[in-house]
């Protein structure tokens, strides 16, 4: 299992050595945790990469490496990219955080942009999208549409981003339907279609008729379709090929404006390390079309929720909210601050599942 990425890294190094000639172009590297054809998370990052190429034409050159495991292999790939003359590297998975910090320390002149992490340096900026805003809308639809009152959630890793999504979906599902229960499976992978399909099947067998996923492939959609009376939501990408059922809506990650903006900043020499966290309002999180499988009144409520989040009138984490163990977290009308959200490591009251520690 381990040798494969090593060889991939070698192949990349050889390939990169061949094209190192073009010097005046801005070279932008991307490392991806899954294949660009995953139909979800990595796919959308690659769409933005292609948009960067389209926008700047000959002025940029992009390179990428897909299916890079989180850990030591990522460090090797990042080092190779930096050595090959990349000016800016987007490292697009939470688990690339420490490798990115390590490599960035060795290459102070190379700029790094790390997605969904929280560690920064002079040449490392972070960016993420407020996916939890979209999760709130999914939770509302899930709560209103479930017949069995069981919502299945395929979680990937117990990190703040995933926990935020579960909390946000749960809060709004409960608001819409006080009887709703969440069943959570931790898949411990971002991308493994067979395992994702099995997880979806296990949840459906145990009564879930809504499946939410925080993994990257479309396999849970296929499993839900096979099972019949189950609805799902596109994750990271629209997954429109499964509309109108099982996929009834989606969260779409739209990285294009941000990537173009950052590449431009590097070209202009104005790039500085910062922390960007955009949501529905800025367009980084988009809500895919809500299909006709959703009753009109539910759709209307979902769109109203979306508008109120976009306008800033409503924050998905608004008190009163207690933590899972019953201790108070937010008082009436209080909203969560970004610091707490970024480090979120607890479930809210009512969730029966557990976070692996």
């Amino acid at each position: 299992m381990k040798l494969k990425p090593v060889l991939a890294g070698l192949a990349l190094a050889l390939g990169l050595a061949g094209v190192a000639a073009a010097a005046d172009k801005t070279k932008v590297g991307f490392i991806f945790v899954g294949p660009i054809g995953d139909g979800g998370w990595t796919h959308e990052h690659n769409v933005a990469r292609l948009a960067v190429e389209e926008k700047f034409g000959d002025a940029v050159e992009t390179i990428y490496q897909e299916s890079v495991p989180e850990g030591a292999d990522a460090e090797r790939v990042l080092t190779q990219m930096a050595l090959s003359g990349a000016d800016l590297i987007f490292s697009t998975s939470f688990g690339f955080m420490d490798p990115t910090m390590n490599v960035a320390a060795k290459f102070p002149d190379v700029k790094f942009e790390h997605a969904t992490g929280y560690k920064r340096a002079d040449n490392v900026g972070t960016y993420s999208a407020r996916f939890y805003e979209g999760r709130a809308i999914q939770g509302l639809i899930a709560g209103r549409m479930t017949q069995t009152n069981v919502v299945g959630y395929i979680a990937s890793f117990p990190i703040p981003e995933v926990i935020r999504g579960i909390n946000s979906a749960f809060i709004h599902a409960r608001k819409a339907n006080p009887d709703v229960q969440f069943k959570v499976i931790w898949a411990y992978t971002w991308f493994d279609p067979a395992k994702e399909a099995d997880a979806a099947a296990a949840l459906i067998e145990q009564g879930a008729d809504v499946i939410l996923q925080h993994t990257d492939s479309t396999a849970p959609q296929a499993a839900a379709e096979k099972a019949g009376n189950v609805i799902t939501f596109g994750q990271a990408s629209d997954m429109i090929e499964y509309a109108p059922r099982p996929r009834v809506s989606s969260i779409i990650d739209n990285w294009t404006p941000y990537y173009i903006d950052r590449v431009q900043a590097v070209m202009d020499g104005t790039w500085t390390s910062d922390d960007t966290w955009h949501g529905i309002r800025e367009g980084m999180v988009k809500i895919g079309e809500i299909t006709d499988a959703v009753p009109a009144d539910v759709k209307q409520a979902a769109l109203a929720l979306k508008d109120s989040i976009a306008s800033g009138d409503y924050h998905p984490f608004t008190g009163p909210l207690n933590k899972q163990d019953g201790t108070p977290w937010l008082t009436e009308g209080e909203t969560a601050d970004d610091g707490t959200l970024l480090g979120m490591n607890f479930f809210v009251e009512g969730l029966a599942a557990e976070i692996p520690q």
Partner: protein
Amino acid sequence: MDLSAINPVILTASLMVAATPILLAAIGELVVEKSGVLNLGVEGMMIAGAICGFAVAVETGSPALGFLAAALGGAGLALIFGFLTQVLMSNQVATGLALALFGLGLSALIGQRYQGVKPPATARLDLGPLSDIPVLGRVLFSHDPMVYVSLGLVAAVWAFLRVTRAGLILRAVGEGHDAAHALGYKVVRIRLMAIAFGGACAGLGGAYLSLIRVPQWTEGMTAGAGWIALAIVVFASWRAGRVLLGAYLFGGVAVLQLNLQAAGVPVPVEYLSMSPYLITIIVLVIMSSRRGRAAVAAPASLGRVFHASS
């Protein structure tokens, strides 16, 4: 915790589905290794089979033709490996690893047009009254045909290696290729046939993923199943029956742990997550350790280069 939500009958049935891709790939690799060849490219052959089968099934509308194409695709890729290692005598480990990478890349290339496409459904085999038997009917007699094909293959491989003359020759080639050569057996030809068979089985395993278990095409969708199949062959100490046990154990615990998680069993998720690997290895190692050394030994010529003049 709500264990009553887990239906053991459905669980057993989904266990068999979850184990079939690994079982197919592992039983093929078993024959390859018994002939003295170490082909580490199972992952590549599986994914090549996954896309060949998917593409042909979509174009023709027939899953059966899809599986046939998957077997051919896997065997074709395997024969590249066979040509390089048996005719040109390249290093088997390096060539096998290269094959795994090549298969992943090639399948991604072929598969570009097939993302988001839905494959034709594979019908469950209608076994008439057998499927209506309570419990047993659901567990044993209501699967798609490939589950039975995989079980049949295991039985056939077991019988082939144990009681047929051809199987004896294959094992002889794997244990001592020089001696087999001296006896007049065509070592290279026999190994090429074994390699092609292994590739065809891996291809079927991949197509089982893309056509039945998931079912869709996604790049890299085997996600390591080929490597697990390789490990199972070793831990099963090159015996067909234990390969079956290992694959079902792995598939079973993998499905079971997901169900236990969904039911909210108070066992840390980390333990549940590692349990398929741990339990499979422990059980197979314990089984192997009870016999003498001869029972666990790998084929003596495994991975060694054969040259007719030496």
